[in-house]
């Protein structure tokens, strides 16, 4: 890139080579094996006879590779990913915090990893003990009365929580008609309310980006089932009129659902159960450090007040007079199951290990550090990036690209340019109430050095936007591939590999371009 214009110095990263790697199918050749089964110690069988002809001739184009090739294949792919383990991952709203390794270790202990979900309860007391202790901890942390760990992810938790609200209203003779959702909410909220058979009513945020209590009061009536509220909100602000919001709802018999996506800003400092929340979900993969794993698995426990307890999904954990734990399936008012078995147990183990590693003091310090880090970034960047809402930030700070768009640079461009500086981008274009949002959530896991590098990168990019916007608009420049053609991907979807005859000829990738 020959230019005398300003181009920032990428202090955190230096380009290095990564290996090229084709699809496993393209590397396959017949006869290679990566497995060896134990010899069969029972008589061989004739499949076509046993299966009455429903035998497949061929399992299709699965790859045939040796073990070393498999190790290299996936190791090479892994090196193309950015990860928390490599550095700050400020993806706002996703809470990309450190995933402790002891969590992984204990979840793989044989008696835990190999526990069959239908093994007798007398031989599952360890597993049930994990469920019990985690439930107790989460109830204490949220200040609620009861909990289910069954939901598999945050959105699944929302679904469960709204089903609880529905069952509660139904038990009073009227399921009610609508759920109120602020315009700053995650897309999962309206999608959830709709899938529970509710009409969605949109609540416009006030000038501070929070709930307009007066507008809410006008909206709430005997048809309102619940308000789904993210607190702190998606702009990282605590709803300081939360008690009034709860009162407005409760006066009309409606419930307050809290989306607990941002619970990491509250743990040990305040409890939703104390400020009027009736039902909420938690994301164990956010607040409680279970790994995001490239997009899951999650886990979305739902905690509620006593009035909703009878409706929890079946089964619920119970303790007998003999002290033994067991599953109670006798739940006549239950909303039913939302998932088979008991939930993502492997995530319960990890979340519990995290709580034990922290203790009450560590959990509180974690929350304080997360809030401290977000405010530090806010303080260090607010002179160069527009702060659309001046309200105090909790665990994340949301800027807008208002100043940069004057030079034709949008939040998505700045995000891509951050990659060249060695960071994962922040969340772009969310929440919807902030046009051109830059949603930054550092989490507690970042040292001051890492934060300073991030601030330095963001400031250098701001300068590039002023003096050399082209370098930002065409970013990233340092990655294996440049921006991808998403339009063609959507117009003419290619969602699977096909053997060469039917697919485009494959060329070995050229090495990442130096710039």
């Amino acid at each position, binding site marked *: 890139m020959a230019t005398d214009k300003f181009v920032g110095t990428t202090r955190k990263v230096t380009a290095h080579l990564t290996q090229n790697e084709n699809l*496993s*199918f393209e590397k396959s050749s017949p006869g290679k*094996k*990566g497995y060896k*089964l134990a010899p069969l110690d*029972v*008589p061989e069988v004739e499949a076509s006879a*046993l299966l*009455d002809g*429903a035998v*497949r001739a061929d399992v299709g*184009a*699965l790859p045939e590779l040796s073990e070393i090739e498999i190790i290299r294949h*996936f190791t090479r792919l892994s090196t*193309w*990913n950015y*990860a*928390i383990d*490599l550095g700050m991952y400020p993806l706002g709203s996703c809470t990309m915090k*450190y995933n402790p390794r*002891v969590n992984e270790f204990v979840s793989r202990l044989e*008696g835990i990893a*190999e526990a*069959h979900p239908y093994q007798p309860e007398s*031989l599952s007391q*360890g*597993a049930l*003990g994990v469920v019990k202790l985690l439930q107790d901890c989460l109830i204490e942390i949220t200040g609620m009365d009861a909990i289910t760990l069954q939901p598999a992810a945050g959105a699944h938790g929302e679904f469960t929580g709204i089903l609880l609200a529905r069952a509660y209203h139904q038990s009073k003779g009227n399921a009610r008609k609508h759920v109120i959702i602020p315009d700053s909410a*995650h*897309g*999962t909220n309206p999608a959830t*309310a709709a*899938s529970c058979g509710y009409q969605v009513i949109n609540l416009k945020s006030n000038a501070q980006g929070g709930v307009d209590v007066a507008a809410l009061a006008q909206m709430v009536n005997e048809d309102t089932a619940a308000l789904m509220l993210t607190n702190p909100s998606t702009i990282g602000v605590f709803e300081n009129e*939360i*008690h009034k919001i709860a009162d407005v709802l409760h006066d009309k018999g409606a419930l307050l659902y809290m989306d607990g996506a941002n619970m990491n800003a509250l743990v040990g400092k*305040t*409890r939703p159960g104390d*400020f009027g929340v009736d039902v909420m979900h938690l994301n164990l*993969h956010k607040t409680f450090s279970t790994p995001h794993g*490239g*997009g*899951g698995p999650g886990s979305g426990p739902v905690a509620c007040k006593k009035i909703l307890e009878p409706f929890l999904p079946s089964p619920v954990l119970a303790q007998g007079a003999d002290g033994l734990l067991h599953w109670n399936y006798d739940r006549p008012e239950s909303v*039913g199951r*939302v*998932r*088979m078995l008991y939930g993502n147990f492997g995530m319960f183990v990890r979340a519990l290990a995290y709580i034990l590693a922290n*203790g*009450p003091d560590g959990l509180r310090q974690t929350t*304080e*550090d997360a*809030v*401290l880090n977000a405010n530090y970034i806010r303080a260090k960047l607010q002179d160069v990036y527009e702060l659309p809402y001046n309200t105090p930030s*909790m665990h994340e700070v949301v800027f807008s690209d208002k100043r940069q768009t004057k030079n034709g640079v949008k939040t998505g461009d700045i995000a*891509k340019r951050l*990659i060249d500086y060695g960071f*994962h981008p922040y969340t772009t274009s969310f929440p919807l109430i902030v046009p051109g949002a830059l949603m930054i959530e550092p989490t507690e896991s970042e*040292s001051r050095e890492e934060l300073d590098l991030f601030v330095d990168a963001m400031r250098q990019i701001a300068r590039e936007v002023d003096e050399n916007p082209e370098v930002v608009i065409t970013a990233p420049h340092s990655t294996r591939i440049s921006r*991808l053609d998403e339009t063609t991907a959507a117009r003419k979807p290619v*969602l*699977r590999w096909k053997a060469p005859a039917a697919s485009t000829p494959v060329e070995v990738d050229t090495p990442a371009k130096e710039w």
Partner: protein
Amino acid sequence: MRYLPKSDAERAEMLREIGASSIDDLFVTVPEEYRLTRDLKVPRQMGESEIVEHFKATAALNANGYSSFLGAGAYRHYRPVVIDSLVQRGEFLTSYTPYQAEITQGTLQAIFEFQTMICELTGMDIANASMYDGSTGAAEAVMMAVRITGRDGVLVARTVHPEYREVMHTYAQHQGHDAREVGYIAEGQPGAGRIDLAALEQAVTDQTACVLVQSPNFFGVMEDIPAIADIAHKKGALLIVSIAEAVSLGIVRPPVEADIVSMEAQSYGVALSYGGPYCGVLAAKEKYLRQMPGRLVGETKDTEGRRGFVLTLSTREQHIRREKATSNICTNQALVALMTTIFLTVYGKEGMRELALQNLAKAKYAADTLSAQGKLLFAKTPRFHEFVLETDEAPEALNARLLEKKIIGGLSLSKWYPELGNATLWCATELMTRAQIDAAAAAVAAALVSAAAR
């Protein structure tokens, strides 16, 4: 706290730079009456060695050293060690949904390989990047069929996993679906243990959106997919085939007549882990692409013409379509899907067949051996690696005796199928040895003898 990379001095300095006098200045928006001024009542901070000891003690309270014949939707197969070794690479473990394609090509390419393998195995045209599990996947498949057909009748075979049916019911009740169950052919008749085709034919109407069956079904029996498809399609209904035992696809003909396949891929190298996380996946005919829930990865090119992968068709999803989305699903099971992808790469084309054949052989031997002591139900209908045993003795008593011999016997079916009497569902995978099967048969026999002697 060892996970927090700051000294108190640094914290104080940062606060100074922000212009706050104390950390509580940053929490002023929390109304004072709601601030927690005490410690949370959770266990005190533990050292790492204590945490490991805690969970070792936990593990010791679970079943250890037992021969287990449990299956019923959660299967014990060998998990090649390379799986755990690879998925614990931080670049896979600690990255997130690949929204930024330039720095997540590893995850994206792996998902593309996953989608391809699922298509090959199921005989479908398209597959998504995974669902929570087989039960929610089946429920999502039903909602998908309702959207596609514009009808609201749902027919579900009683031979579908009972907990899948419960989940489907929870989802369906608020969508206004008319969900009904179709029974199975009773013991002693041709096709015993399979969905009752005559009853199905009667139940399907021009208001039926879909027929949901499982194969191998909950009894381990293979359903006659082409015949069921005919009945459904004649009335314009879709056929959804749920597959709870994905290893079966190594030898069993794929359900190519289905419109949607909902699979639980736990068998592909995912730990039992007391019920999760597992790996659901939806696959379908290409024409239903726009109604498919969940994330999809597609191939495309970058500005230089190099191949790359991106999340695509995201307009179906909740973050864009909000209340009109195909589903509220957001997080999927990416890391678990990666485990299954590695598993399938390890076994490959030949290995999947060999593995499935071993399962078939072990289950045949186990069924033959154990049924010497009881009655094998649905014996003449083709099955994969599970079978139903009827005994004179009640399952609870039988299993209590087996436990004394460190054997976990078959799962009692009385809760879900009381009409089957003293029936238990047994499973034998490739990990079950002949010696374990023989020992179980001997223990069952001894149990019968002592029961008879009472």
